[in-house]
């Protein structure tokens, strides 16, 4: 049904559930891009500050997304991994547009109302602005997905 899927992955419980859902949906279908987004400081003081944040985020996510992509490949899904940098919502939307994704899958963990108001939520932004369908896999209090 879906030929090109973007899975936003950051290793959380929500992401791991989203990975399992992706394996179910994408098996025998199209290809999957497993994308992790490392944060870099906004309004940076020096270029090297940005470079260092990229290095640290790269080290943190490189192996994680590779393992997630390997898990999908083991389940018979054509998957590749990629790490990029910036504000997660914006970067997810940009990559989804660039690869012509017809589905974005991401996991989410419930936030407090205050945190959601102040910091915003990546899932909200992606649902709001994505050009394609979005599946939000939510971790519930009983630690299952909905």
């Amino acid at each position: 049904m879906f030929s090109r899927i973007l899975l936003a992955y950051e290793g959380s419980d929500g992401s791991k559930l989203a990975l399992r859902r992706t394996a179910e949906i994408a098996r025998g279908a199209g290809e999957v891009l497993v994308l992790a987004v490392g944060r870099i400081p906004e309004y940076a003081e020096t270029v090297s500050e940005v470079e260092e944040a990229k290095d640290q985020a790269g080290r943190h996510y490189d192996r994680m997304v590779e393992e997630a992509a390997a898990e999908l490949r083991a389940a018979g899904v054509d998957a590749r991994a990629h790490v990029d940098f910036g504000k997660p919502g914006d970067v997810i939307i940009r990559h989804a547009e660039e690869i012509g994704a017809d589905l974005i899958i991401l996991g989410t963990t419930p936030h407090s109302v205050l945190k959601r108001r102040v910091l915003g939520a990546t899932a909200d932004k992606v649902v709001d602005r994505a050009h394609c369908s979005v599946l939000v896999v939510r971790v519930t209090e009983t630690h299952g997905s909905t």
Partner: protein
Amino acid sequence: MEQLWSGVVVWLALALLASLISWRIGISVALVELVVGIAAGNTIRPQLTEWVTVLASVGSLVLTFLAGAELESAVVKRFWKAGLALGVVSFAAPFALAWLVAQFAFGWPLRAAQIAGIALSTTSVAVVYAVMVETGLNETPLGKLILAACFVTDLGTVIALGLLFTNFGAAFWVFVAALAVAVVVLPRITPPILRRLNSHASEPEVRFVLLVLAGMALLAVRGGSEGVLPAYLVGMVLADTFLANRELIKRLRATTFALLTPFYFLKAGSLVSMKAVLGSLGMVALFFLVKTGAKFLGLVPTGAALGFSRRVNMYTTLMMSTGLTFGTISALYGLNHGIITQQQYSVLVVVIILTAIVPTLIAQTFFAPRATDHAIDFGTKGGK
């Protein structure tokens, strides 16, 4: 001694607080330090002692050096024509307009108005770079052109700050001669020195850089100039050496960010009087419009002449309207030398903070270039 340590505790607590906020919300620690400094300066009023001034001054020097050392010479050479055109316009238009508005609309004295012009002429290379990384633009010819142009703008700012308030006496020419020798000799002697010192635990390379910067700053100040001018130029000529030695930049930056720049930005923020700002909100708004408006007036036609599409042109202009570090350095220079009052300083710093945030948000929200825009090869249009 108790007073000394109570001062140290307060300043370090503010530095840690800024660091934790920055870590939590993902915004650069420099901006957070400025805001925390403003909050502290208007409430608990931490003492501005001699040692705070020393740490802050060295912090601004190293920060300027790092800014100069951030762009490899190949990028500047490849995009020098277009970069020079955009960079000069990006500096000159807001410098002239902000100067004129400060002097003739607000009645600031000539030298104070010049400080306003310099402080509002800047472009923040680092702010621009971070945004371009998010859009993937930093690796494209367009991204490199924008960085080269930002670099030229900053050069204009440090030259103006270094020369406009100088008396051109004998000591100044001694400084110029020493600077000329340094820019020729340092690129030759620094690589072998760094290889020889080779990451000894006592960090001799970092000490070498600090000594060079302090020595050049001494000559600059004696000559009636300003330490940021040699720091930026030395950074420029050593850029390739340092970019080939990322580990050294990392260690220098770690030293600077841990112990020096927090004091610089916290101090710069603590000197802002919110009472003065609230009493001058109209001036803040007008200066903000003058800076961004002047960038538009200068950069949009230049970008169009270089063949930018409308979207790319707007994005480039907004990006080059940002400012942070050099703006605050210029304003603080004016305050420290009695050229501007605390009220004028407060207005300028708040405008600078606004210019770091507002143009970036507008550019990212409405004008982020599309993938097709990235493919434009400015090498064939602007430089070789």
